[in-house]
């Protein structure tokens, strides 16, 4: 886990304009948000004054006109002195000097069991023959709330943008997500930070507030998040979208509420959230107005009533006890359940929570699917997998494990230009994605970033299509665990998937699932 001093900035002095002609170029110092570079006012020479401040965002190399800068892992990072690595030492020094625990953004940096150790089994002669990707159709539509509400969500592709709030993300990034949702027919999510007025029309494909000028087809959906902080929430807010998502938790910090540090609460963020400018927006970890599961049931009832029984109600869970949590969501009347794994992202959270709390995404899915099956609602109540979904391959595997759709959060940020420097909480994102500072936000054009996101979604959709059809299906809803195999014992043990070669689940999974073992009191 890198804290400080993990990166080495090297400048090729033969290429560097400043090294050749001091004073002629200072782009790196101008763009670096962390003060790594300093220009000597007398000589005009550029110095690297503070290696330790570099977070590895690579904005300097991006802006360097002659491509002279390389950011590499620092030499010490190669020296394995486990468990006393350089970053561990720096972390302890930080705590000793300040008395503060570390905060980090983006997500976990720990190696975690993930989709990579799962492989796909294609169709050959013994199973249904493969479909022709180029000349046959593949049904990718996902409908949420078909039987329960008047206006179900009809996602053209099995994807959603994960909930990321305005405040954590810049306005430009939020609008880019809305535009791409409209261009691809998927859904974007307000997150818990209130609604930007533009999101409402852009996400549906309109360029104006009156919904007269249709700019993008096919037009997407807007999921309105109802969360524990209730920032900027009113009856109108709930009715301005196409679905309401009740946030219980998130993958990167299950059991904690949202953190938005005062540095990112600008005048506009404060207005949208309805709070004083510059104050930390620390959402409560639980709903103060829900004490029991019955209260939650009533909450779903009044949310349906306020929205005139038109919209589906979604739930978002962090990775905790998926079987029990999903069962509870079904009990209270959810139309879809998003389950976010340990690999899920965050704008800011305590480092220990991001790194060490929750269970991996691949381990969330089998119990969640089992809970849906045990109640006879699998593929009716939709399951959306979140947490480290990077491409069509991950999406396919999640859907084969039983999810109906997947959400992209971190991947969306990367698609917009993020270089994954794990410093979202600082509010200095030089790519303008997770910053509220005007100079950084100016680098992100919503329409251009929206196009990138659209391209990314289309590419992922094609990937899912290729994989679905080569495994002999022409609808993503036909995917099953038979289409994938675990490639190692660990994954087979975690997921209950058949192990390659062994061709059956490990014997520990023979009796299937024992939900009682998953309950808090261990079935007693």
């Amino acid at each position, binding site marked *: 886990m890198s804290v400080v001093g993990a990166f080495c900035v090297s400048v090729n002095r033969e290429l560097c304009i400043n090294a050749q002609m001091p004073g002629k170029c200072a782009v790196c110092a101008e763009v670096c948000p962390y003060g790594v570079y300093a220009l000597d006012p007398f000589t005009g020479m550029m110095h690297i004054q503070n290696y330790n401040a570099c977070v590895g965002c690579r904005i300097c190399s991006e802006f360097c006109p002659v491509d002279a800068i390389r950011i590499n892992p620092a030499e010490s990072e190669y020296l394995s002195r486990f468990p006393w690595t350089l970053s561990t030492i720096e972390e302890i020094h930080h705590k000793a000097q300040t008395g503060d625990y570390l905060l980090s953004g983006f997500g976990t940096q720990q190696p975690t069991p993930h989709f990579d150790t799962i492989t796909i089994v294609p169709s050959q002669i013994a199973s249904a023959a493969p479909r022709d990707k180029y000349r046959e159709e593949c049904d990718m539509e996902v409908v949420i709330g078909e039987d329960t509400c008047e206006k179900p969500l009809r996602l053209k592709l099995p994807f959603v943008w994960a909930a990321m709030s305005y405040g954590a993300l810049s306005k430009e990034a939020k609008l880019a997500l809305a535009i791409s949702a409209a261009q691809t027919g998927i859904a974007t999510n307000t997150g818990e930070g209130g609604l930007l007025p533009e999101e409402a029309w852009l996400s549906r494909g309109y360029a104006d507030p009156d919904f007269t000028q249709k700019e993008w087809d096919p037009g997407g959906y807007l999921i309105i998040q109802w969360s524990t902080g209730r920032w900027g929430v009113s009856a109108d807010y709930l009715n301005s979208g196409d679905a309401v998502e009740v946030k219980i938790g998130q993958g990167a910090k299950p059991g904690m509420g949202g953190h938005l540090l005062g540095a990112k609460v600008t005048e506009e963020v404060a207005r949208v959230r309805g709070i004083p400018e510059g104050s930390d927006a620390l959402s409560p970890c639980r709903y*103060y107005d829900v004490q029991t599961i019955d209260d939650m049931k009533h*909450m779903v009832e*009044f949310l349906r009533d306020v929205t005139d029984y038109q919209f589906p109600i979604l739930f978002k869970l962090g990775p905790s006890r998926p079987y029990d949590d999903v069962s509870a969501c079904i009990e209270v009347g959810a139309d879809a359940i998003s389950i976010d794994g340990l690999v899920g992202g965050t704008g800011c959270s305590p480092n220990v929570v991001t790194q060490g709390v929750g269970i991996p995404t691949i381990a969330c899915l089998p119990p969640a699917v089992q809970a849906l099956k045990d109640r006879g609602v699998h593929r009716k109540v939709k399951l959306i997998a979140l947490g480290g979904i990077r491409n069509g391959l991950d999406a396919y595997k999640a859907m084969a494990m039983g999810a109906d759709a997947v959400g992209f959060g971190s991947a969306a940020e990367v698609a917009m230009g993020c270089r994954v420097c794990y410093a979202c909480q600082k509010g200095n994102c030089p790519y303008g994605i997770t910053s509220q500072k005007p100079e950084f936000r100016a680098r992100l054009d919503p329409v251009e970033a929206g196009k990138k996101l659209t391209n990314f979604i289309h590419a992922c959709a094609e990937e899912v299509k290729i994989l679905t059809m080569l495994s002999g299906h022409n609808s993503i809803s036909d995917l099953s665990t038979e289409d994938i195999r675990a490639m190692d014992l660990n994954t087979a043990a975690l997921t209950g998937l058949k192990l390659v070669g062994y061709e059956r689940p490990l014997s520990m999974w023979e009796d299937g699932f024992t939900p009682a073992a998953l309950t808090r009191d261990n079935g007693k």
Partner: protein
Amino acid sequence: MPDSLGSAAGFQEGNTMTAINAKSKKLKVLSSLLKESLGEEPVEVTNSKHLNGVAAGYKHGELIIKGDAGDYLGVLNAGATINLTGNAGKYIADNMTAGTIIVDKDAGLGAGMYCYGGNLVVRGDAGDFTGTMNKGATILVVGDIGAEAGTYMLAGDLVVVGNAGENFANYLIRGNVFIGGDWETLGNNTHVVPLSEEDIEQLRALFETYEVEAPLAEFKKIVAASEKPFYQ
């Protein structure tokens, strides 16, 4: 109904006021009836205790709820005036943004949470966590108030005529808390200050509006010690 007649008088004379008996009705049925009948005239609802989330998110109209109410009465209220003649369940006026809700008797746990605006008046006692995360509403409790009242208030006013429980106004960020009686313990980040002239005027106006008799001289004001408290 002529303006000169109060709603109660109108009811007694049996004139045009709509009355809805919610007995064994489901929320969806009651809400569609309410939506049809809400207008200039007040609407009276009886036997709604078994329902939760009655009158959610109405922008206009006047409701008189006779008897006790279930949980989440007037949740997300956006402008309606609701008068409850009995006791309120949990979370009355949750996330209200505008309008007025008056409870003639007691309110349960968590009255007036997450409100952005509007007025909530509880003529009896109110439970724990009343006014939690208030972001702009005026909440008046004429009786006593439970523990943790006014937790993490970001704006608005919480006025308690009686006494308060433990951890009163815990982690207050902004907004004002006024109390006529005593508290058991005061929460973090709080600071007791004397009432200013404006405060006294404001309270007097509030008490006059809702016809509450309270000894103004005994009121204390609690504000945040810091707008940016240190969270550990």
